[in-house]
């Protein structure tokens, strides 16, 4: 995926956290808020704002982790995927990688 699509949010380093989101989605916004409240650094991309070809490339990336390609999808350290707004799992996972 082209990195210029990624928005970086500064914070504490808890590993590589990548959030695939939709700008219009309430559950995605809650996930962004949670990551902000936890104060962790992460990269995010609002897939609905991409042009067609980029969007297709990114959705193919997401499907490797989440075949249904639903939002939000969070990929941690390129090894763990959390699907949907799941504060408990997200917090637990970020503790582990601390």
């Amino acid at each position: 995926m082209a990195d210029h699509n990624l928005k970086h949010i500064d914070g504490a380093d808890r590993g590589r956290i990548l959030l695939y989101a939709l700008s219009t989605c309430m559950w995605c916004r809650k996930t962004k808020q949670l990551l902000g409240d936890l104060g962790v650094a992460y990269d995010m991309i609002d897939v609905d704002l991409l042009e067609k070809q980029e969007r297709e490339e990114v959705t193919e990336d997401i499907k490797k982790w989440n075949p249904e390609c639903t939002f939000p999808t969070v990929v941690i350290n390129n090894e763990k995927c959390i699907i949907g707004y799941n504060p408990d799992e997200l917090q637990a996972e970020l503790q582990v990688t601390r």
Partner: protein
Amino acid sequence: MSASIEEVSGEDIQKYYDRLKDDVERHGYHLNPDEDMTRDLIRGLIVNQRRNSYPSCPCRLASGDIEEDLDIICPCDYRDTDLGEYGMCYCALYVSGDVLSGEKAVSPIPERRPSPEERAKARAETGGAPVHAGLSKPVWRCRVCGYLCGRDEPPEKCPICGAQKERFERFM
């Protein structure tokens, strides 16, 4: 494709909210009582309406092709089943009486929408549904609210929920 959430004013959201709430309640449904969530979702609906000319689910990625997205135009084809099973629809704009009264909390639910491949297959299969022997007319079903009618063509608009003709499927 340029519409963004920042361009939607509080006034736009309020107007949509008032109209929707009134309409929804008259039909026996309930909006999520958490107004922050509901306004956030309505903003997403307005953005999708401006982008694609139809208000698809804010929590699902629209293709931009209305034929592909008919099932996720709000209210989506999955709302009633999700309200029955989980007490809320996928994005949580609509909730059941349990959630409205506070007996049940709002939380995310699994996606019920079939994959694009499964949807294409289902379309191909139902497209040629035979009229049952003994029926003088085909029966059409509104995918949004379940309304059934026996007539040559589905109505232009569902008389119960107002869904467009394209949201009907041949039932019998």
